[in-house]
């Protein structure tokens, strides 16, 4: 399991547009670099990130080798109701990680 860091504001009022920041520990090896023996290091990147509120898609992104190591994705969400935020990362070699956080709208 890779380490993740999900940042949400501490309190959320109905109708607020909040900032959501999701980070995950991952090398994002590009597939264009060589090791000290001249062997090309195989590509190992996260290719997909998704965020849903319960079943409703909020935000998704296809990521490429140009994204820095330990990818950080920040986006916004209009908080109309409470629910569970689901975060999912997918990548090369069957990489997959899911996290969830409660969204409590006051």
């Amino acid at each position, binding site marked *: 399991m890779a380490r993740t860091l999900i940042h949400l504001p501490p309190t959320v009022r109905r109708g607020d547009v909040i900032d959501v920041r999701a980070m995950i520990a991952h090398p994002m090896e590009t597939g264009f*670099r*060589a090791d000290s023996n001249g062997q090309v290091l195989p590509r190992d990147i996260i290719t997909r990130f998704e965020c849903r509120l319960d079943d409703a898609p909020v*935000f998704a992104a*296809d990521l490429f*080798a*140009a994204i820095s190591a330990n990818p950080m994705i*920040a*986006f*916004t*969400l209009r908080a109309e109701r409470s629910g569970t935020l689901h975060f999912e990362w997918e990548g090369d070699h069957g990489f997959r990680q899911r996290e969830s956080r409660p969204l409590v709208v006051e």
Partner: protein
Amino acid sequence: MSALTRRELFLAGAAVTLAPVARAAEPALEEAIRAWAGSTVPRDGRVTLEVSPLVDNGNVVPLTVRVQSPMTPADHVREIVVFNQRNPKRDVIRATLTPLSGRAEVSTRIRLATSQRLVALARMSDGSVWQHAVDVVVTLAACIEG
């Protein structure tokens, strides 16, 4: 060995040196944009690509794309993408937004192999496409090629 003349050896060496150039079939920036936008011609405006014009470290370049949009079900940004000019691949990120996004805004951190042009584009729910290009100078390149 004696079968090879000096000229043949020179040409063989040249062929090896040129091989990586011949391999680079990656499309140019304009082609990548055309492939994504289809028949729609991108217009300047509505999109703001925020990135420092002078980058010290190409490994971690903070970048934000903002698009002017009410983000209602009737009128919102469907997609925000960023392309680059001189990394090994043209794609950087392709984000899908929804009316639940509230604002049309995406931030991330990217790698830049060298000084180059970045283009952010947005596709609206009415099908129109908007763009903003920024030229970035990179002093320390990302070690993308080793």
